[in-house]
């Protein structure tokens, strides 16, 4: 059995049952999507218990649970009868065969019917383990391992070694957002950061094939595969047909405003998709001052075309931090594959770092903005991506 603890959602007052239900749902769905069949998830007073049919499954499930947002810690648990002798045996079973070291026992007794008080239980269990092993000693200040004994009305649980979960909030409790996903390092991290705050994320990718490689589309799908490991449902990738817009910008917009106009088109399209699909905000992987286009002035001009809030979860990170996170998430190696939009014709050697809104508006007069946006949206494909790849109906 695994004992799952969650932190933050415990603080959320009246919403708490909803959050808990969502977390249980996410755990169930996640495990099911990972191929687990025989398991039971129960919610009990601020904890979630997961019972599996075999210990081997438990180990594998642990790895899955470490990717579920909202979980703070996971421990392997043995159940004991409400009887001190049985508790002693179970604790010994958990520690026997361990490497030499120190331990201590901590007891919490919420079932006041149990005849011994917590310190007594700790002492008796600790003593029993000491007597029956020859390589363990007690250290109450800095033990190598803590044995937790929880005596509750519904049962007695003995566990050691809790591993940390990723924390955050259960995905879905905060509604849905739409994220602009490129093949690069940043946007997948922004995706992950958004999930962490409990929002469901639908990625939007702008596909300019043949101005970009077909392999860059593959790359985005591969990134979605990794991200789908953190979501309770498969990822609904919105693949926007951007070729015509790309072409129009290159032909009709002055090079140094190209990137700004392109981003504005992307924002317009994203907002419309978000409105159609109940998205409450847009998210980007932008950070401040990393590249020339990511200045406050540039953000303001780009932001001007939308009314939805635009979240930029990476704004406080340095590049190194983003890289590290992307490595931990598992998207880094995909993001650094060489074929992204390196050949993008839009990129100018000297983009305007401080574009002026009036100039940009003037430049856009040459484009049929509404028509281009409508065409791009009409030709947008939704691709459902799960951990193993594209889902076919």
């Amino acid at each position, binding site marked *: 059995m695994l004992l799952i603890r969650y932190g933050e959602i415990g603080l959320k007052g009246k919403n708490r049952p909803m959050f808990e239900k969502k977390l249980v749902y996410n755990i169930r769905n996640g495990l099911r999507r990972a191929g687990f069949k025989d398991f039971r998830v129960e919610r009990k007073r601020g904890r979630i218990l997961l019972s599996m049919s075999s210990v081997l499954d438990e180990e594998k499930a642990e790895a899955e649970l470490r990717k579920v947002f909202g979980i703070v810690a996971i421990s392997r648990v043995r159940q004991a009868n409400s009887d001190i002798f049985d508790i002693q045996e179970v604790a010994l079973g958990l520690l026997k065969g361990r490497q030499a070291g120190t331990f201590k026992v901590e007891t919490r007794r919420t079932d006041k019917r149990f005849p011994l008080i917590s310190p007594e239980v700790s002492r008796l269990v600790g003593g029993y383990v000491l007597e029956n092993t020859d390589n363990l000693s007690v250290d109450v200040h800095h033990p190598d391992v803590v044995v937790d004994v929880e005596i509750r009305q519904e049962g007695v649980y003995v566990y050691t070694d809790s591993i940390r979960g990723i924390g955050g909030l259960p995905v879905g409790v905060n509604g849905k957002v739409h994220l602009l996903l490129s093949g690069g390092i940043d946007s997948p991290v922004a995706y992950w950061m958004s999930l962490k705050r409990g929002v469901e994320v639908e990625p939007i990718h702008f596909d300019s094939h*043949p*101005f970009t490689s*077909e392999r860059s589309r593959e790359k985005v799908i591969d990134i979605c595969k990794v991200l789908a490991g953190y979501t309770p449902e498969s990822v609904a990738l919105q693949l926007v047909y951007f070729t015509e817009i790309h*072409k129009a910008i290159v*032909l009709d917009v002055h090079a140094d405003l190209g990137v700004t106009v392109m981003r504005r088109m992307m924002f317009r399209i994203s907002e419309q998709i978000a409105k159609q699909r109940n998205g409450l905000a847009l998210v980007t992987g932008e950070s401040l001052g990393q590249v020339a286009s990511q200045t406050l002035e540039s953000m303001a001009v780009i932001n001007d075309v939308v009314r939805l809030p635009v979240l930029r979860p990476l704004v406080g990170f340095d590049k190194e931090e983003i890289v590290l996170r992307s490595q931990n998430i598992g998207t880094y190696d995909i993001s650094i594959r060489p074929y992204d939009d*390196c*050949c993008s*014709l839009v990129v*100018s*050697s000297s983009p305007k770092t401080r574009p002026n809104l009036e100039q940009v508006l003037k430049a856009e007069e040459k484009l049929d903005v509404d028509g281009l946006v409508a065409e791009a949206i009409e030709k947008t494909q939704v691709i459902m991506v799960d951990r193993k790849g594209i889902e076919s109906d």
Partner: protein
Amino acid sequence: MAYLDNSATTRPHEEVLRVMWEVYADHYGNPSSIHTRGLEAERIVRGAEEVLADMLNASPEEIIFTSGASEANNIAIQGIAKAYRRKGKHLVTSTFEHSSVLETMKALEKQGFEVTYVNPKANGMVSVKDIGKAIRKDTILVSLMHVNNEIGTIQSIEEIGRILGPGTFLHVDAVQGFGRVPLDVRRMGIDLLSLSGHKIMGPKGIGALYIRQGVRVAPVLYGGGQGHGLRPGTENVPGIRGLAEATRLWEVHGEEWSVRVQGLKEQMIAGLQGVGEIRINGDLERAVPHIVSVSFADVPGEVLVHSLAKEGVFVSTGSACSSKHKGSHVLHAIGLDERFREGTLRVSFSPMNTQRDVEMFLEAIGKVVPLLQKMKRRR
């Protein structure tokens, strides 16, 4: 669909697939096994050696099979360097060789060898005189490709063979020439020669190395003694059979195929004349029929390839912008202007291509190039 990327790889010939199927299904023995099944397999390998030897005017004992030309190049160059290091530590090659030669040379430089890299001329030819000048008393090996893989020029191997003294061996990477252009190792003075199966409608994962009798090559791979101790590992019998079949097909049909392909090349070059600023790279008088290297001014090559692919036309570019330097090392080596280098396509034919393929290519070019040029020039 028009597949015109046959210097990258070819679609295997149906006969090749048929004979390979037979080997996979029926003659699956290990040539080293002493029983009947093993003997059958060994006969297939011996038979293939004969076919290749005939094609090259070599003898069967001079052929070993490898996983491809890259491996053959490695075994040859490293093996000669290792075997003759006491005689000299200098090697000569050109700057537009395949990476399996250039990288091997670089690795040898780190081990204390000296390498002279000769630049080809603007017409895509390495001059015999320049090779002569590069050779020193301690030169143990000259390694040069027979046909350049990006621009198709046929190098003057025979002349180079003639100027080398007895202490200097000649290795030829013949991947793009084998089968398509006559090769005679005796007449041309070639000591070692690498070739590959999948460029001539044979299978992938198979190649061969010719080593003239009397040339010592020290092993760089160790194992069960197959391939005269130079290429250990159970022989890829189906691949070997497939390579032999492809070779046989070229021996029988090669001339007729060359004429056909030359026709396609001329049709293509004529059709390209209307497309504005272009360059055809390499000396056409000294090039193979199956490769056309054409450069368009102010066109990003990679985008052009993607755009053509969308039209169902498959070619390659030497100027993938993911590579660090703009444009290929080959185009760099022949001194092509940067404005053209970026927009270079390599179109390469197999005998299976038709005039319709060329028409499709030209139509697609007419549609795509002007737009890309316009886009590029706006930047």
